[in-house]
């Protein structure tokens, strides 16, 4: 590009950034670039609006009265109806659903990371008969349709007395998060240097101690990525609890929202529903905006492997 564009005969910089290569000799190329620029901003803005609008609209609607949501969906609220929020939090049990979800996801996230990293470490670092078999057994689980296993799983849980219990749900979440976690962490442990672990072993540390005190701290970036991935997956989980956790008191957030939508639909309490939706939406969005870089890295890490 630089070669064909001789120093500008007509110095006409349209913006301060493009000074040197205003294509005087090639007006066609230059205008192609400009048209493209306008065009690309155009389509990019349209999609940004399409993505952000529904979310903003939900936030706005959560502060409106039921009448105005239905009759004038685009109008700003006459005043901020905070009572929608309190109604959703207490009467619609959003508070309880939050607590249940926190409990389940907290337990299963710790369990997934601990068990996943243990299995991944052994599979990545030790040669033993059956290593490949166990590895492929784990990663095979990534591509099977979960719904197929769900029917028998319901009865397995029932027989073990784990149906509609928090610990039962935690165990199932862990089990279904293991394939990706093991897959991701195995390749992560392979990239870590072996020399430090060997040094620790020479100093007399046991395998277990080496893992917990040397390898796990070194694997922190990988654990954060896969942790974010699992956190979002488990926090947003809907299908597993719908089948395995039908006790009204033990519902998690996504079930509670569907429940809320059904019941508020009958009652016509739309504002309460939007307050509930926004309540569930904002913490995750806020966390995403703050930890943007880590979240994107965590979610795209698997696909780039």
């Amino acid at each position: 590009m630089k070669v064909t564009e001789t120093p500008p005969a007509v110095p006409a910089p349209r913006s301060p950034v493009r000074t040197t290569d205003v294509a005087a000799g090639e007006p066609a190329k230059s205008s192609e670039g400009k048209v493209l620029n306008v065009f690309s901003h155009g389509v990019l803005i349209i999609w940004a609006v399409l993505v952000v609008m529904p979310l903003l609209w939900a936030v706005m609607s959560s502060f409106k009265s039921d009448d105005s949501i239905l009759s004038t969906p685009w109008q700003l609220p006459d005043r901020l109806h905070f009572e929608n929020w309190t109604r959703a939090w207490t009467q619609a049990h959003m508070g309880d659903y939050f607590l249940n979800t926190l409990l389940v996801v907290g337990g299963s996230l710790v369990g997934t990371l601990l068990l996943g990293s243990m299995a991944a470490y052994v599979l990545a670092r030790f040669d033993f008969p059956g290593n490949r078999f166990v590895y492929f057994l784990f990663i095979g689980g990534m591509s099977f349709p979960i719904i197929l296993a769900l029917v028998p799983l319901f009865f397995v849980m029932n027989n073990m007395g784990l149906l509609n219990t928090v610990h039962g749900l935690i165990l199932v979440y862990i089990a279904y998060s293991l394939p990706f976690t093991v897959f991701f962490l195995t390749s992560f442990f392979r990239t870590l240097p072996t020399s430090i672990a060997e040094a620790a072993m020479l100093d007399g540390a046991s395998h277990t101690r080496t893992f917990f005190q040397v390898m796990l701290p070194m694997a922190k970036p990988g654990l954060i990525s896969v942790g974010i991935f699992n956190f979002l997956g488990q926090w947003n989980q809907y299908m597993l609890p719908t089948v395995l956790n039908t006790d009204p008191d033990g519902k998690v957030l996504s079930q509670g929202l569907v429940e809320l939508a059904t019941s508020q639909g009958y009652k016509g309490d739309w504002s309460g529903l939007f307050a509930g939706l926004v309540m569930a939406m904002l913490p995750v969005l806020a966390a995403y905006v703050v930890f943007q870089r880590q979240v994107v890295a965590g979610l795209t890490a698997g696909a780039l492997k």
Partner: protein
Amino acid sequence: MQHGKYRFIAGFLAAPLALYAIFVIWPFAQSIYYSFTDWTGLSPDFQMVGFDNYSRMLDDEIFWKSLQHSVLLVLLLPLVTLGLALFFAFMLNVGGRRRKGAAIAGVRGSSFYKIAYFFPQVLSIVIVALLFQFAFNPTSGMLNATLKSIGAKSLQPDWLGDPDLALYCVMVVLIWSTVGFFVVLFSAGMASIPKDFYEAALLDGASRITTFFKITLPLLWDTVQSGWVYMGILALGVEAFTAVQVMTVGPGGPDYSTTVLPLYVYQTAFRDAQAGYATTIGVGLLIVTMLFAAVVMRLGRRERLEF
């Protein structure tokens, strides 16, 4: 030492493997077995019925409808989503004004776009589906209100209530919620393609559209292909199930116009109490999934380009 090593391996693998075997492998194995029985799920007795469930499935009109919808999703969703994502990512990376002699440049504010586009990815598909369910509401939804306000009073579709439109409404929701993820993914891939390639091509007189097809796409092919598999599994799996289950009337309606295979499995097992037959449909779904993955792998096989 050697003894200690094996004890350590066994100790570390025991708990994860046990959990995985009990809650994942064992149910999978059982489901294949149950697909040959007439088990209701309610009582512990059942009989082997051979291939009865399978022949019943082939005569089941709703099964064929669900299959048709699932196949439509598998064909259209990846195509539209990945197409849009590639387009937006390309715009982000080469749509900028040229500065300081660079042949191509990203648009200004590309990080802002990427942050906004990624929003739906962190939200639960349940939230997204509920939000859109309301937007599609024919009397008070956002869409018809907009149509009314721009003067299209006669054009007030029923959206999710219209059997011809409902499935496409579900599709729009799934596309809306996944495009951003791939924009970010592809954008990262495009940023790692050396700029000289574009410079050389533009110097030779290639247009930007040509550079997309001749440079960007071939070098990004691996990522596109894994995105294709990912979208296909999504279209046959949990996300499609959730969107249909939450959004549509019935769910699966109106008049079975939106049932997809996972939803049909779920309904047969837990609503109709035909656990045995449900696993048969589940095996059908497994076969479709594996066929899809095989086709993508085969079609997508190209020589890997290193750069």
